[in-house]
């Protein structure tokens, strides 16, 4: 199979050649430990400063508010756990949504085991958080609201500004997991009243193993990784200089190209959505029709199971993902799909396709044609479809 259409950019992205190029000298030539005194390290120090500034600028933040981490998960853990530790004198309650990434949800579960209380606010059938429920959940002991900027599975974009305003009104810290949104949507931490924000390099064509947490000046959280004095004493560990440089470069390019890139993606995404929903019966689009990430499409096909669908797509050179229990390792279907109200067996037949700027109209048409064939084939093998047809026939015969 020579054709390869990579439609799993929400899982991870290829690192841009220009990013790798930017990183390379920092492996073998400018390898110094940035904490050292000699000249060799100054180059590294400066490179880190540059990346930090590029990133800060992209968010309307100050360079001193960006702290590099090993990825989005660490940033989420840090924001939640260290906030709880730092503000526990004020209260022990945090609010989040039911459709957060596991890096937030499992951290919340950990916090619950350690004496904190968590309210998981519902979302509607499009995956939008219920703002009224969110505000009603606020208690005098609430110290943190954490709601993701955009969802990794169904792509729904949350009303971040409104959430930020609620948080501000009640004087509660607001963290957002922007791992999916960063690089796809314009974000301004002041405009949205964001106090902390997580991001990850490999989701925007940067390297894996690098991320950051934005921490607004004045937020008094401690370290999560204790040790050396790196990152203004807030995150220990020898700096991943090539990773930081690559992340900076990726952000620079992502910001420059955002408008053009996402406009093209939206167009092709809509072609994909329209064709699939129209041409394949018993299919639904998951997530909000318009308030969704430019590159995200997520469907449920009744009567079939996602893993089988993925493998068959792979045989046709198409890479996608699914919220099916069979692909999750945990044997539960996606909590996100269940939260927007899908029954188990429909959540099973879900397919997420996430585009990149490299995808063409031809690719999309090829993909739709293949999906159609495969869904048909899998339905012809499905006992659920058989039952459905029989029941329907009976009904028609009555």
């Amino acid at each position: 199979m020579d054709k390869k259409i990579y439609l799993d950019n929400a899982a991870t992205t290829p690192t841009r050649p220009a990013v790798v190029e930017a990183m390379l000298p920092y492996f073998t030539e400018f390898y110094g430990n940035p904490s050292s005194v000699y000249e060799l390290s100054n180059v590294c120090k400066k490179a880190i400063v540059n990346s930090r500034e590029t990133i800060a600028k992209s968010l309307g933040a100050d360079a001193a508010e960006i702290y590099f981490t090993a990825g989005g998960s660490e940033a989420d853990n840090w924001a939640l756990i260290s906030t709880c530790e730092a503000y526990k004198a004020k209260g022990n309650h945090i609010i989040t949504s039911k459709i957060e990434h596991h890096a937030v949800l499992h951290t919340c579960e950990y916090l619950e085991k350690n004496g904190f209380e968590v309210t998981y606010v519902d979302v509607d059938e499009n995956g939008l958080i219920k703002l009224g429920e969110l505000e009603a959940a606020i208690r005098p002991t609430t110290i943190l609201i954490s709601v993701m900027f955009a969802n990794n599975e169904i792509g729904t974009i949350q009303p971040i500004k409104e959430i930020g305003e609620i948080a501000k009104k009640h004087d509660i810290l607001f963290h957002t997991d922007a791992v999916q949104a960063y690089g796809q949507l314009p974000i301004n931490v002041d405009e949205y009243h964001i106090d902390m924000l997580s991001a990850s390099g490999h989701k925007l064509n940067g390297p894996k193993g690098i991320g950051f947490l934005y921490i607004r000046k004045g937020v008094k959280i401690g370290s999560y990784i204790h040790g050396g004095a790196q990152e203004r004493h807030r995150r220990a560990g020898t700096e991943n200089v090539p990773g930081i440089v690559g992340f900076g470069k990726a952000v620079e390019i992502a910001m420059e190209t955002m408008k053009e890139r996402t406009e093209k993606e939206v167009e092709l995404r809509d072609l994909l959505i329209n064709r699939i929903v129209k041409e394949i019966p018993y299919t639904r689009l998951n997530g909000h029709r318009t308030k969704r990430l430019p590159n995200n499409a997520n469907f449920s096909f009744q009567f079939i199971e996602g893993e089988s669908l993925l493998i068959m797509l792979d045989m046709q050179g198409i890479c996608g993902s699914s919220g099916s229990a069979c692909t999750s390792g945990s044997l539960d279907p996606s909590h996100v799909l269940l939260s927007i109200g899908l029954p188990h067996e429909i959540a099973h037949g879900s397919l997420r396709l996430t585009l990149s700027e490299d995808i063409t109209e031809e690719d999309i048409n090829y993909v739709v044609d293949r999906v159609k064939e495969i869904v048909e084939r899998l339905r012809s093998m499905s006992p659920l479809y058989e039952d459905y047809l029989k029941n329907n026939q009976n009904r028609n015969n009555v």
Partner: protein
Amino acid sequence: MYSEKVMDHFSNPRNVGEIENASGVGTVGNAKCGDIMRMYLDIDDNGIIQDCKFKTFGCGAAVATSSMATELVKGKTVQEALQVTNKAVMNALDGLPAVKVHCSLLAEEAIHAALWDYAEKNGIQIEGLQKPKSDIHEDEEVVEEY
């Protein structure tokens, strides 16, 4: 992730479909991941399985084990078919990833369910066959990968 044999049976599943007026039909579900398998048996007067077809709503492993199971029971006697365990199916497929072992139970149980249906329809008892559960779940250990 899957062996070549699994991929072969997944991409070209044998004996997919229905048998009209089958001697026995069994449908089982796996409570663990919500998947469903249906097995049709055509059994002649000598108790030989002449034909076998399946339909499956499940992962790659579930499809491949269904396909392999139908191959294994075809031409066998009812008693012999009882020996087609999930382990036998897995072996015939050159193994499954640890997280997919439970899928192979669907195949074993579906055969049992179809045989049970056959026995009930014909008012006979098959030695060693117990009433199948409609939901499969077993206390399998979480086998560690890597």
